[in-house]
């Protein structure tokens, strides 16, 4: 029997994958729904397994209307050949994403037969201290953006005694928590979503390993409401994991008790900041907490809490299974292992690229991504989400790694690269960065709450003025105050996109200033 594979990933669904799967089934074909391989410009990407050796060949951009009479043929124009030999995939080094796009995400047997649970089994054979040692040795750092060493965070939580919920008169039991931050709000990032939709058991396995390592009994996934498909897949996976004994009492026959629940966000970007996330998980307004106390010591409901990004936790099973040394051998400086890069925006071949740290932005965008989707010249790339810097076209040789980017006044963030062509007006992007901060600031600290509002006003002044130097100086002062005085990265990093736009693309601000001044005076340009 021929088996066909059609993604159920939200990106594939957004361009008709459900219709394609239905059309194949109408033809009497057997269809397995998978995650996406991450070659998003080819979605819906349909694959067929060779009945002899299981090798999978694929077709790109399949339309349901092409399948009214027969299944895709090897002679079709959109035939891709062996999927894993495509250059975009062949050059990748997949650790976190090793199963995504290959397996049925909610089939535990498929998970097991593709190496799933090997990491947790290995971890349960080790003492908690040895697991933490492995994570530390791997050099794994937080993939949410801050890049804090994961092993040190886990060690801190492991050293704390579990405590009862603060101020909870009903539940006197002592707890520690593993909280997964799946509030992936940065524009240009979708790796958390695709992992949760494509290999949810991997995240649960990583959480169980963390629980064993630090002695936590409870897990929570804070998942944003904008990801309904991910919520559905994760929820189904949790049910199935409980049925298998992968969660609950005595995981895999060990003495480890650990269960996971999902809490859904409510549309607040700043809740991706870890302390705001804790507030939201506790059912309150998602405002930022001052640190200390560190969440590792006093986190969710006052208990010692590991807070890690989805990709951080999902890295752990393969690190345990394949060895910390092999992971640490990848990358450069203190950026070890692999990073899941996300190519987004105006790019010809957008998608997921998991490779070792150190690849240049240029190689990612022009080598793999093949430049802009519009075919126009590239003007800027925003790296690391809405709080990340804009790099100019001639600044893309920088290696994608924590230290190298920091040296350029930029940051890796969650690994997203958003490409803009020459139609973009960078003064508009700078203004948007401030507007976004106005919209999403939690309001707790003044530099962010008031600063963002003033930021929009000052940029407007700058653009309308015929003597913009004063306004520019004011804007730079304001950015300094926001950077130095804000409580968290929301206000603290909003100046990054603003100042990088101003520094790298000053002509856009002048042009806009002239245009606006002319408009005031009634001058008409051709």
């Amino acid at each position, binding site marked *: 029997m021929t088996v066909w594979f059609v993604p159920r990933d939200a990106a594939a669904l957004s361009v008709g994958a459900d219709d394609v799967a239905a059309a194949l089934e109408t033809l009497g074909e057997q269809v397995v729904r998978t995650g996406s391989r991450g070659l998003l410009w080819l979605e819906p990407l349909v694959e067929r397994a060779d009945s002899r050796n299981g090798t999978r060949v694929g077709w790109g951009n399949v339309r349901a209307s092409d399948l009214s009479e027969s299944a895709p043929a090897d002679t079709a124009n959109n035939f891709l050949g062996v999927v894993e030999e495509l250059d975009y995939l062949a050059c990748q080094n997949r650790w976190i994403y090793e199963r995504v796009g290959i397996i049925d995400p909610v089939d535990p047997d498929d998970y097991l037969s593709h190496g799933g649970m090997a990491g947790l089994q290995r971890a349960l054979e080790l003492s908690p201290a040895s697991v933490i040692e492995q994570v530390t040795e791997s050099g794994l750092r937080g993939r949410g953006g801050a890049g804090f060493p994961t092993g040190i965070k886990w060690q801190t939580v492991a050293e704390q005694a579990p405590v009862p919920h603060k101020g909870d008169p009903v539940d006197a039991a002592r707890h520690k928590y593993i909280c997964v931050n799946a509030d992936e709000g940065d524009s240009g990032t979708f790796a958390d979503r695709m992992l949760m939709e494509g290999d949810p058991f991997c995240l649960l396995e990583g959480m169980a390993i963390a629980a064993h390592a630090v002695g936590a009994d409870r897990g929570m996934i804070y998942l944003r409401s904008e990801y309904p498909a991910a919520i559905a897949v994760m929820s189904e996976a949790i049910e199935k994991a409980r049925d298998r004994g992968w969660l609950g009492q005595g995981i895999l026959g060990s003495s480890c008790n650990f269960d996971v629940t999902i809490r859904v966000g409510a*549309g607040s970007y700043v809740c991706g900041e870890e302390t705001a996330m804790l507030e939201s998980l506790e059912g309150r307004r998602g405002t930022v907490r001052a640190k200390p106390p560190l969440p590792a010591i006093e986190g969710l409901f006052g208990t010692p809490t590991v807070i890690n990004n989805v990709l951080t936790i999902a890295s752990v099973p393969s690190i345990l299974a394949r060895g910390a040394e092999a992971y640490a051998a990848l990358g450069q400086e203190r950026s070890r292992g692999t990073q899941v890069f996300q190519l987004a925006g105006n790019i010809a071949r957008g998608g997921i690229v998991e490779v070792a740290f150190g690849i240049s932005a240029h190689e990612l965008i022009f080598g793999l991504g093949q430049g802009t989707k519009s075919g126009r010249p590239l003007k800027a790339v925003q790296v690391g989400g809405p709080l990340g810097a804009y790099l100019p076209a001639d600044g893309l040789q920088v290696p994608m790694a924590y230290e190298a980017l920091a040296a350029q006044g930029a940051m890796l963030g969650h690994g997203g690269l958003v490409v803009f062509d020459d139609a973009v007006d960078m003064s508009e992007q700078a203004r948007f960065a401030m507007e976004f901060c106005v919209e999403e600031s939690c309001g707790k600290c003044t530099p962010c709450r008031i600063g963002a509002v003033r930021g929009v006003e000052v940029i407007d002044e700058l653009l309308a003025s015929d003597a913009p130097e004063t306004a520019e100086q004011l804007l730079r002062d304001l950015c300094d105050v926001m950077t130095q005085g804000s409580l968290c990265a929301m206000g603290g990093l909003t100046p990054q996109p603003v100042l990088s736009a101003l520094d790298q693309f000053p002509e856009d601000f002048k042009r806009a200033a002239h245009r606006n001044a002319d408009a005031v005076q009634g001058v008409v340009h051709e």
Partner: protein
Amino acid sequence: MESPIKTTEQMATLKGLIAPIADREPGPVLLCLQAAQAHYGYVPEGAVAVIAEVCNVTRADVHGVFSYYSDLKKTPPPAISVRLCAAEACQAVGGRALAAAWGEACAADANLATATGTDEPVFCLGNCALGPAALVNNQLIGNASVDTLKSAVEAAQNAAEASL
């Protein structure tokens, strides 16, 4: 607009809905608001007081949470919700122009405007390589255009009629 939480029975309905949450979950206020919204389509007047009572917190506490989160609504939603992504990755592929064109399409077509109500932008739907992205009810749309949005709205309307 008549709130569906006025009579004692109506209050009891909401209590029945949220009391199990408050009993089971630590920090239940946001969960209760979300449960109320899932049931009514929005958080009706009167719900805040009931949630405050069940969770044993002040109305001000509940109102503070309610007013903080942009997902939580004070009024019933439109028949079809259309949310265009307003974030950078979609801006890079004409998101602003699409939003303007969609606004014009709605202005020109009263039926469309009534069905979809006021469009609320959303910051990032996680479909950043296939932008502009939009969410029509719970259906994610990639490479969105006014035409694909219109057909998605139509499909959602047909689905709603079929389920009646």
